């Protein structure tokens, strides 16, 4: 070996043995102590708080959980979707993977002397050095992007606390002092640097060019000691800070846990109230009535604000911000939770009700249950399930709900529809079409379940007629329940009236069993979601298909012949209950593309980022006193594309969008159609 390099590496080994190793061993001892403190604080600050909550089994399907964990935590799968979150996704990806590389490199180098890896020619040591250097570089780039975003461009969804200033400054200090150590070591070796130095120390070798050295070797070694300590002390303290404080850095482990323990039930399926008949309380009145997983949700939130960026209530200036809901509940959990622990007896005090004290009433009733908050959250936190639980308590325990809902509940209870129209009128729309009921045709293959809108709303009756005409043309064997059909219960459940919901579900399941229904075709996504994902909680066991899937299948089978009409520019509005709830996005679009003359244009907010029409979560029957009207905002988004037709596949959306067009004075030039209507018109 070249004697200059031999001298260089001997010097490096000397520094590693004399300075870096003692500091590293000391750091490891402290880290072991910190790990013990972490276990204690985790138990005390988190685990005990979660134990306050009710049971929820999240231990099923471990392999699926691990798979999701790897793709979401390591691959950032929930960050990249849609390409709208590219900047923060790249930013966090760089910081995350940079950190992993730094730890990998440090780990290998820490054990290098034990395993003989520090021999200069050992390529593993050099690779470890390169990993650390590159990892550090990635963190600096990612953190610089984060700082630029948080403190310069300042998107409205980010709120900054002192901790946010600190963590970036701290990481920068640790990395810079780390590069200075290696830079110093390189330059103190004397002579020229090895020619391959840039490949294993790309940043430190550049830093070494600017470092001044002391005249004596002893003083220089002393300075290396200084530099190592100036790096090691803040680095160790950083871990201590993560362990002891309640900083946002807790997300490193809390968000990871939340990803692993995410609900694997159908998206947005609301939890039933166990032992409804015997339960003494319903829903959530105080914080400890959430489940442990819901409490973990609160702690796992990092205030990234993606939820508020797509929340129709927040964007329409209603008093609901999903991030604030979670943060307010979290703050309440942290302050109130400790006093509820059995290990820390406190003077008897009245339980703090969440409604009114933590969550204002207007906030509670502003949610449209569109599931956007959950869908946008990178770590699967849902705000809406907590609001539904509080609604349950408000409705069932206190009979406290917006006045408009009184008639709606009464209508559903007495006439099995939200408008309180006589049951006998439910199937009037089908009289002239020769549609048989299951009572008349018990051998029908399909139960067509049009839902309340199709049964009682004049505009939506036309959609049911179109669907029936298609089914008849295709020779599908189907029947309806007619007056025996009841409301699926979706609005009642999402408005918190679980009692009414369970009653409606019970009646419908009884009717289904009476006619031995096995296959159900729905036109309403709310009915579809309920029958498919929530009825099984009550023993409902049947195949449920939405008309869009059904019609798409018919198209695929080449059983339909479509003719060209006038050319139409169509934009499709995704229903929350088909899209975000059930991930049905493409059949509707494929049907539209198959219709001759249709040019499909996508709104900016589409697919999983679609903007709610404003009618879900019972909002269809509530007054919209505050802020802008959600349906008008959605209509404006559609009108920006200058379409002839706004297509949808949901009666709620159809009604809300038509209303929006009317108030915008565009109902003459732009029409709202259900996909079934467009398809039926184009059929030969």
């Amino acid at each position, binding site marked *: 070996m070249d004697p200059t390099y031999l001298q260089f590496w001997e010097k490096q080994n000397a520094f590693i043995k004399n300075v870096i190793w003692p500091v590293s061993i000391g750091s490891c001892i402290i880290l072991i102590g910190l790990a013990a403190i972490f276990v204690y604080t985790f138990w005390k600050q988190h685990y005990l708080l979660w134990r306050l909550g009710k049971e929820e089994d999240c231990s099923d399907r471990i392999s699926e959980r691990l798979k999701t964990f790897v793709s979401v935590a390591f691959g950032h799968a929930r960050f990249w979707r849609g390409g709208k979150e590219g900047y923060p996704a790249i930013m966090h990806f760089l910081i995350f993977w940079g950190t992993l590389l730094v730890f990998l490199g440090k780990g290998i180098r820490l054990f290098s002397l034990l395993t003989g890896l520090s021999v200069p020619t050992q390529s593993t040591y050099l690779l470890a050095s390169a990993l650390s250097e590159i990892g550090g570089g990635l963190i600096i780039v990612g953190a610089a992007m984060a700082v630029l975003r948080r403190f310069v461009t300042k998107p409205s969804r980010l709120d900054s606390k*002192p*901790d946010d*200033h*600190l963590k970036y*400054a*701290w990481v*920068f*200090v640790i990395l*810079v*002092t780390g590069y*200075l150590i290696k830079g110093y070591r390189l330059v103190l070796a004397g002579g020229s640097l090895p020619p391959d130095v840039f490949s294993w120390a790309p940043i430190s070798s550049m830093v070494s060019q*600017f470092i*001044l*050295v*002391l*005249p004596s070797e002893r003083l220089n070694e002393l300075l290396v000691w200084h530099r190592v300590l*100036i790096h090691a*002390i*803040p680095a160790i*303290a*950083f871990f201590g*800070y993560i362990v*002891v*404080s*309640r*900083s946002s850095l807790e997300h490193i482990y809390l968000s990871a846990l939340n990803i692993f323990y995410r609900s694997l039930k159908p998206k947005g399926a609301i939890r039933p109230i166990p032992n409804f008949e015997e339960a003494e309380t319903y829903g959530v009145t105080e914080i400890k009535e959430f489940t442990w997983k819901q409490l973990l949700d609160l702690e796992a939130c990092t205030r990234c604000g993606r939820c508020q960026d797509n929340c129709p209530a927040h964007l329409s200036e209603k008093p609901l911000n999903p991030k604030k809901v979670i943060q307010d509940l979290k703050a309440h959990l942290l302050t109130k939770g400790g006093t509820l622990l059995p290990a820390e007896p406190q003077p008897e005090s009245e339980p703090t009700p969440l409604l009114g004290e933590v969550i204002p009433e207007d906030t509670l009733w502003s949610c449209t249950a569109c599931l956007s908050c959950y869908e946008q959250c990178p770590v699967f936190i849902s705000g809406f399930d907590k609001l539904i639980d509080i609604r349950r308590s408000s409705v069932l325990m206190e009979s406290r709900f917006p006045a408009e809902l009184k008639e709606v509940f009464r209508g559903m209870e007495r006439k099995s529809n939200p408008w309180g129209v006589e049951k006998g009128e439910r199937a009037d729309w089908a009289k002239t079409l020769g549609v048989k009921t299951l009572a008349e045709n018990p051998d029908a293959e399909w139960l067509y379940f049009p839902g309340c809108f199709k049964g009682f709303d004049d505009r939506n009756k036309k959609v049911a007629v179109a669907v029936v005409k298609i089914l008849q043309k295709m020779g599908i064997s189907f029947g309806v329940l007619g007056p025996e059909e009841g409301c699926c219960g979706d609005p009642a459940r999402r408005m918190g009236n679980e009692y009414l919901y369970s009653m409606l579900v019970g009646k419908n399941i009884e009717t289904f069993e009476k006619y031995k229904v096995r296959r159900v075709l729905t036109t309403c996504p709310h009915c579809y979601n309920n029958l498919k994902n929530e009825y099984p909680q009550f023993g409902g066991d049947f195949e449920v298909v939405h008309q869009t899937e059904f019609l798409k299948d018919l198209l695929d089978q080449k059983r339909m012949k479509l003719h060209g009409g006038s050319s139409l520019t169509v934009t499709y509005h995704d229903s929350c209950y088909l899209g975000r709830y059930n991930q049905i996005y493409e059949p509707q679009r494929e049907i539209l593309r198959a219709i001759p003359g249709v040019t499909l244009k996508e709104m900016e907010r589409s697919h999983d980022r679609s903007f709610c029409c404003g009618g879900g979560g019972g909002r269809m029957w509530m007054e919209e006193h505050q802020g802008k009207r959600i349906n008008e905002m959605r209509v404006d988004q559609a009108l920006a594309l200058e379409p002839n037709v706004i297509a949808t596949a949901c009666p709620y959306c159809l009604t809300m969008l038509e209303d929006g067009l009317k108030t915008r004075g565009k109902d003459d030039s732009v029409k709202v159609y259900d996909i079934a209507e467009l398809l039926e018109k184009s059929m030969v």
Partner: protein
Amino acid sequence: MRAIAIVIEVLILMGVIYCLFMAARLTILDVGFRTKYDRFIRWALGIVGAVLSAFFVAHLTLFYPKLLP
């Protein structure tokens, strides 16, 4: 050049001190000290920080390596 190097070193050292002190303050508040003590904590850490910065400036001015001729 030496003066610039000293300024950079002082900035790095004060960065370290800022991080440690700020973390101490936030942790103290997190573990249960009431926010009414925050003002006192800020002042105490501020004074110690000022003393440390004076020390770093003096120390580096005295001992930082001279530029080679």
